[in-house]
């Protein structure tokens, strides 16, 4: 169990952008029957998702969110000395998308820029990396970007993933200030479960070829996908989550000398309503303190924790608020964060079409 602690670093401003295109799951009946669609919506709680069009990438969503946060808070771009971009749907295999965003946002060449690729728990990993570098003392401001276009990853003909995922991007400004006090993170990994959620082809183990793009029937239910598309073994993911997540939250609370009642809000990775309500019930949480965006944005991978904060806590973060963050997914990796928010400025959610704000 690896715990990290930081002092006097926090998120001072946060914004988000989502594609303008809304996919209503109950009307997602081109391939699936009305009855199947309704059944899945009722079980997962995912009514709507946002799908990026062909010309919109994760980086475009983050760019729009970042420009909005920078403008709303009158931030001098010269003061942004660190840019971290979190995604598993980057623009290219190389160069790193963070570096293209440094130029696009007009940040100085002195900016430290790199990508973090990890999956659903990555916002917490990214936050702890940025907090660590900020605590070091030399950097004025950091910009943490987190974007995913998971709609482009999964097959619409695989019922087990077709209705779950959506797209989004967030931008967070991170600064030093004594007012934030202590943050605590628990970060974990279990590579023995690497095959639970995976895109098998397109990397260097199984390079893209004519064969990897062929759609095949993959099970007795007739679900179809290619090796370039993601799959998820939902049963074992759920087994994993009910065993590890409550335990990690309890261990982190114990380590940091907190009770779950101490927190103003508890933000979970938005997997689906079935998994999330089961964990909340198991931990006996007050549902009023557990905001959700599952119904309107679906599972946006690493973006779901910060997107839920932007969407559901705007206007509720004045003064000091203690947030407990919990995320889990592909790897498997999982993380718990005790993250104080003090007067965090939340921008309105932007909409994006053809790569630009609309």
């Amino acid at each position, binding site marked *: 169990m690896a715990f990290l602690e930081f002092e006097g670093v926090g998120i001072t401003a946060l914004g988000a952008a989502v594609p303008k295109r809304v996919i209503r799951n109950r009307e997602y009946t081109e391939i699936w029957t009305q009855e199947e669609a309704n*059944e899945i919506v009722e*079980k997962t709680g995912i009514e709507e998702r946002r799908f990026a069009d062909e010309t919109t990438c994760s980086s475009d969503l983050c760019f729009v969110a970042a420009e909005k946060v920078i403008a709303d808070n009158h931030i001098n771009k010269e003061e942004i000395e660190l840019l971290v971009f979190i995604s598993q749907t980057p623009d290219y295999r190389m160069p790193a998308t963070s570096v293209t965003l440094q130029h696009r946002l007009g940040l100085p060449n002195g900016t430290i820029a790199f990508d973090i690729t990890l999956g659903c728990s990555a916002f917490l990993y990214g936050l702890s990396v940025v907090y660590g570098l900020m605590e070091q003392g030399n950097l004025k401001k950091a910009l943490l970007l987190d974007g995913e276009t998971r709609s482009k990853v999964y097959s619409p003909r695989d019922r087990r993933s077709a209705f779950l995922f959506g797209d989004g991007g967030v931008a967070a400004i991170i600064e030093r200030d004594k007012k934030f006090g202590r943050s605590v993170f628990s970060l974990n990994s279990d590579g023995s479960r690497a095959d639970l959620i995976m895109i098998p082809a397109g990397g260097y183990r199984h390079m893209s070829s004519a064969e990897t793009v062929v759609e095949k029937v993959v099970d007795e239910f007739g679900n179809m996908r290619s090796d370039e598309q993601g799959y998820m073994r*939902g049963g074992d993911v759920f*087994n994993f989550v009910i065993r590890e997540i409550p335990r990690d939250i309890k261990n982190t609370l114990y380590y940091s000398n907190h009770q779950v009642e101490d927190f103003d809000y508890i933000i979970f990775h938005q997997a689906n309503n*079935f998994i999330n309500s089961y964990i909340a019930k198991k931990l006996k949480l007050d549902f009023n303190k557990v905001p959700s965006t599952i119904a309107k944005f679906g599972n946006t991978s690493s973006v779901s924790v910060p997107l839920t904060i932007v969407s559901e806590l705007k206007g509720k973060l004045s003064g000091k608020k203690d947030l407990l963050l919990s995320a889990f997914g592909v790897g498997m990796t999982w993380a718990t964060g005790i993250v104080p928010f003090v007067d965090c400025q939340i921008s309105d959610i932007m909409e994006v079409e053809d790569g630009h704000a609309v």
Partner: protein
Amino acid sequence: MNEFLNLFKEAIEREDEVRLEDEFRKYDEWDSMAYLSVIALMDDKYNKQMEEAEFNTLQTVGDIYEICTKN
């Protein structure tokens, strides 16, 4: 046993009767979401967790009942 059968029936949202000898994968209601509901039932009511590979060896409702009530 009746309690288990009722919980199982409720979990997979089946209207017809559920019997121990039934092969649950042949139910119309059986799909990946029904499977998640059964995992939740096993964990919540019987404190039993089981990986998918092992679960795949179970055939009947009675096989699941046996796992749930085994010490």
